[in-house]
């Protein structure tokens, strides 16, 4: 093969590799966001689909652009929506922190375990993730509900006189999110802790650092990429979580994902649901960009 022909065939290979995933993701991932943004700016209407076109012909046959900022104005003014966003951010942040507090020692212990056992320990962390998400949430309903396992236990031990309200509380939402998202925290933490060279810790010890100090000054900073990836993997999806607040949270657990679901499926207000989605996306743009940056960095190494 001559050199120009090789270059040409190289180009052809690149094109062949790229065209399908690029076109697919553009059509089914990027383009939909633009449509959401467009519909967020349209007015709700009766009919199928239940929104008025943004571009329409007036009676004088003039094409006009009708933008409706009312949905966004409502989002900013109505305390219900504002509180839902703030509550979602708080619940997701606290859940990510709890996952980190439980997940870090686990990941650390797995990374320090004898090599032949690490595989099994990791698989045991992932296994629940491979079973059904809904059915794992169901287990917690069985444990927490008024006629549930935990209340039954407490009553039979005589620790309480009447069943406690455990389900349909904000605590139950935290529990559900931490339970379901914990593997997403442990795996990236493990990946960065396993890469850590034990020689560094020995060097710190030789220089007189106590184990805790060595951990703070060597291990913790070096595991930062894992911490950041884990926190993003829990925090970002948790902000928009629907199933857990819907099934474990009470009427007060109005998180954004749930509000959006109700606007869409019950109120059939597609423009309002779209406006909620656009605002949620704007809220998450920085964390998502950060996550993408971390992923690109990890891929380059």
């Amino acid at each position, binding site marked *: 093969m001559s050199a120009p022909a090789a270059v040409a065939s190289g180009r052809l290979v*690149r094109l062949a*590799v*790229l065209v*399908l*995933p*690029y076109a*697919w*993701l553009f059509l*089914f*991932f990027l*383009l*939909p966001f633009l*449509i959401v943004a467009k519909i967020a700016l349209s007015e709700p209407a009766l009919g199928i*689909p239940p929104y008025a076109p943004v571009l329409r012909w007036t009676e004088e046959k003039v094409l006009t652009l009708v933008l409706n900022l009312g949905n966004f104005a409502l989002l900013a003014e109505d305390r219900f929506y504002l509180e839902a966003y703030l509550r979602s951010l708080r619940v997701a942040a606290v859940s990510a922190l709890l996952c980190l507090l*439980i997940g870090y*020692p*686990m990941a*650390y*212990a797995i990374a*320090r*375990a004898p090599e032949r056992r690490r595989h*099994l320990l*990791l*698989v*045991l962390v992932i296994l*629940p993730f*491979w*079973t*059904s998400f809904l*059915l794992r*949430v*169901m*287990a917690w309903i*069985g444990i927490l509900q008024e*006629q*549930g*396992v935990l209340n039954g236990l407490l009553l039979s031990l005589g620790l309480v006189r009447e069943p406690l309200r455990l389900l349909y509380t904000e605590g139950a939402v935290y529990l559900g999110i931490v*339970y379901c998202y*914990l593997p997403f925290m442990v*795996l990236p933490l493990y*990946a960065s802790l396993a890469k850590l060279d034990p020689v560094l810790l020995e060097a710190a010890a030789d220089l007189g650092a106590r*184990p805790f100090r060595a951990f703070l000054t060597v291990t913790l900073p070096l595991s930062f990429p894992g911490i950041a990836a884990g926190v993003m*993997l829990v925090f*970002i*999806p948790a902000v*928009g*979580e629907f*199933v857990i607040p819907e099934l474990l949270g009470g009427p007060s657990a109005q998180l954004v*994902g749930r509000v959006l679901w109700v606007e*869409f499926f019950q109120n059939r207000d597609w423009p309002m649901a*779209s406006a909620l*989605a656009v605002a*949620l*996306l704007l809220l998450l743009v920085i964390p*998502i960009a950060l996550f*993408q940056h971390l*992923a*690109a960095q990890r*891929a380059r*190494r």
Partner: protein
Amino acid sequence: MSRRLPWLGLALGVGYAFLYLPLALLVLLSFNDSRLVTSWTGFSFRWYLALWNNTALIDAALLSLRIAAVSATGALVIGTLAGFALARLGAFRGRALFGAMVAAPLVMPEVITGLSLLLLFVALASAVGWPGERGVTTITIAHITFATAYVAVVVQARLADFDESLEEAAMDLGARPWTVFATITLPLIAPALASGWLLAFTLSLDDLVIASFTSGPGATTLPMVVFSAMRLGLTPELFALATIIIAVVSAALLLALRLGRVATSLTRV
């Protein structure tokens, strides 16, 4: 782990207990003769029998398995190409956008993905007349789209792990790109492909939110049936379903552990 063994052992013990006690409870309750979760009245298989006779649930499970198989295969093809592009093509025009489109679905809240895809399908239907009716096809497209990201990450990580000089050597010896891919690259990334497919399959099987948005009147998947049943209250039938899923997943993962490398790539996401 020598000196700090007790402390670390405790962390692991508490962590695994937290992960597994709820699952153990589901398994135990599925064999309970009583409908109540608070009283054990005897060992029974009756809920498994009830599950077997629940045709709506069985039909939904079969539909979900079909959608999962097709979308996992689609995601495998597109995700492998995407992972290959990111790991091997170096710089190309639009790489930053491409990288973002591949990574973002991993963390994108499901309600956003679901809503945006539905609105796309509605817009397409009015612009080009397709898809005429939402259902199995639209759910499958949606699942391919978000599962592609997971396959791409697994494949990209595996490609980054092994030595590119193997491929270069084959090229130097005169192998054409396709031959290099088929004889060198493909066998080396096969474990990643297997785990990518399984991951995509599981994610599709488990998805409630995106399927609810993109489905039509004709297509009800297993998570939709389970979700609406759960809203009416827990039934031991659902515990039996959970037990079957836990058993299948455990068996599959143990097998993967035996086979070795598949398990390694599963941990890369």
